[in-house]
């Protein structure tokens, strides 16, 4: 690891890369970015809505600017206010975090036009990769395996039936502009095809203002495996290994780990090579994730996420590399400070997402006030959270309360450590419920412990529970 030398400052340069970085996000990721900036000697400005004025990121930042009311459309999703705040505070760069404007090429373009560095890939690269159908074509062209599916977006019933017939049921209908698990529907019966197609388009139009959808073969018991890449503007692309994110509830990731357990021989090399090839083909810069489905010995590219991801800490834990730091270096025009040699993973890391959701009400998000909030600690446990005792969970945003990340020499020890860590997490307050119990169930599940689970794990677990009830 000695090659990962102090990356904060370019050799020979006196000061930090940027004087000031504006963080255009909220919650744990805003705090995460502030932390790395602080360590690099960079001033931070955090923009926030009225609902977030007491947030941990605002407290931690050097400066904050209130940009709008709680509703995201008028604050975190409103480019003019963010750019104005950057100009007023002298920020040379904007870190968009994940979600919100992080993959919006228009926002990146506006930043560029105002002389502000957008910490992410170039706008045109984001535009190309953000269109899921287009991205799939690009990657197929670069020699990556892709899931059988529609060549482009599907816009009429004739096309729909022809495509579905060609690739066979079950199919998954996805919004071209979708992401974060929204705008996806699985079709298992022919008579569901047209209604689901229409419903998905309607949702896509409502949520993403873009009703284009495309079709893919749905892999029933596939694993979700993704490869983290870093690329700079000097032609260097390195991968930092893979993550398994197969534990999902309705396409939302709950548990992520690295390395991916139980891959067949050669699979890891195939995926990481494909990701590096894809990044080069796309002209990618910064931190990015190539997502794949893996089923047995088959693998297929799904999409690229053009941003830091929620689950990036598991990669940090096994490689020792601060991904946000590399993002900032690349955005400042510096070469990557790490080589693939440095990135060789060590041990096993797992992340669990603790959400403020009520299991008894179908995991509906539950805002409330945190009276008690004592995160776990101790050996090889990292907690990324913006929550603190007395903090009131606002109703406007996603329900992520905390990410608990553990590291251990092997997977079994890592699972034991995670169970210990989640078990000591104390969270309570009027109306506050969390997903901790569900996560504990996953960690105790024999299929998960054996590393043989797929994206259908939670449905299977629910089925088992139903079976047991029926049997009892």
């Amino acid at each position, binding site marked *: 690891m000695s090659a990962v030398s102090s990356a904060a400052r370019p050799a020979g340069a006196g000061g930090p890369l940027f004087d000031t970085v504006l963080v255009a996000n909220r919650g744990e990721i805003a705090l995460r970015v502030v932390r790395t900036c602080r360590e690099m000697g960079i001033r931070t400005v955090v923009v926030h809505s*009225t*609902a977030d*004025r*007491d947030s941990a990121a605002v407290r931690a930042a050097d400066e904050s*600017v*209130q*940009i*709008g*009311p*709680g509703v995201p459309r008028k*604050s975190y999703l409103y480019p*003019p*206010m963010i*750019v*104005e*705040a950057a100009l*007023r505070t002298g920020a040379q760069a904007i870190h968009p975090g994940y979600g919100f404007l992080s993959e919006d090429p228009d926002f990146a373009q506006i930043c560029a036009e105002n002389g502000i560095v957008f910490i992410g890939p170039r706008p045109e690269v984001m535009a190309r990769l953000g269109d899921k159908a287009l991205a799939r074509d690009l990657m197929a062209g670069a020699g990556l395996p892709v899931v059988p599916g529609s060549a482009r977006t599907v816009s009429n019933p004739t096309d729909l039936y022809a495509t579905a017939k060609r690739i066979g049921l079950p199919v998954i209908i996805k919004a071209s502009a979708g992401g974060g698990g929204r705008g996806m529907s699985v079709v298992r019966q022919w008579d569901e095809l047209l209604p689901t197609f229409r419903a998905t388009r309607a949702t896509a139009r409502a949520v993403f203002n873009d009703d284009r959808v495309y079709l893919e073969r749905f892999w029933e018991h596939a694993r979700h495996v993704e490869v983290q890449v870093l690329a700079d503007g000097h032609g260097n692309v390195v991968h930092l290994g893979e993550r398994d994110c197969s534990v999902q509830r309705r396409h939302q990731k709950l548990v992520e780990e690295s390395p991916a357990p139980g891959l067949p021989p050669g699979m890891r090399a195939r995926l990481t090579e494909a990701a590096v090839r894809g990044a080069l083909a796309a002209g990618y810069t910064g931190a990015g994730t190539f997502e794949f489905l893996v089923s047995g010995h088959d693998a297929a590219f799904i999409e690229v996420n053009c941003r830091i991801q929620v689950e990036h800490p598991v990669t940090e834990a096994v490689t020792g590399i601060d991904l946000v730091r590399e993002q900032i270096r690349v955005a400042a025009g510096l070469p990557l400070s790490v080589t693939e040699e440095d990135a060789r993973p060590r041990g096993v890391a797992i992340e669990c997402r603790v959400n403020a959701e009520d299991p008894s009400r179908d995991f509906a998000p539950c805002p*409330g*006030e945190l*009276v008690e909030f004592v995160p776990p600690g101790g050996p090889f446990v990292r907690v990324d959270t913006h929550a603190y005792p007395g903090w*009131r969970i*606002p109703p406007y945003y996603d329900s992520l309360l905390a990410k608990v990340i553990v590291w251990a020499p092997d997977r079994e020890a890592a699972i034991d450590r995670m169970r210990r860590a989640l078990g000591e997490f104390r969270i309570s307050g*009027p109306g506050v419920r969390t997903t901790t119990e569900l996560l504990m169930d996953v960690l105790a599940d024999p299929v998960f412990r054996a590393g043989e689970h797929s994206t259908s794990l939670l449905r299977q677990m629910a089925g088992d529970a139903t079976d047991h009830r029926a049997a009892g």
Partner: protein
Amino acid sequence: MTRSRAQAPATGDGDYVDSLEQEMAGLGAEAAMDILSRSLAHAVRAAPCVPSRALVRFGCASIEVEWPAAPGTPAAPGLPRDQAEPAEDAADGLLAVTAPVVGTFYRAPEPGARPFVEVGDEVAAGQQVGIVEAMKLMNPILAEAAGTVAKVVVDDAEPVEYGQPLLLLRPRSEG
């Protein structure tokens, strides 16, 4: 292995408690009441609903609080704090005109010109009282209600953030 936490103080009649009482008295009324009221806050926060009545007594001094009856309602989540500031102004009967966007506040239509309004001016509802420039767009700031300008909070050409009070109006008396 049950433990009896509540029992300890209860059985502690005797010299020790007497001296404690002395110490309490020695703290003075302010400190003592402060301790007591914070203790009360603990108790009030603990329950999912608001008490109907609370009494804090220290010697001859006492504080009694009664809450209005709210039948069957769980603890009302307090108003988000972003509404608190205008409310404070409202306590003085003043109404704040706030910035609708992040930007730069201008009191006058152009450099060197006379301000839109001065303290003491009467303004009509909808009358322009300033500008906030954001992304090179001039956003007119309008009075929401008729009244008298009581105070100009932000100086000319100063940066403002969303929701920041720019000036205070004393609303025209309705009576």
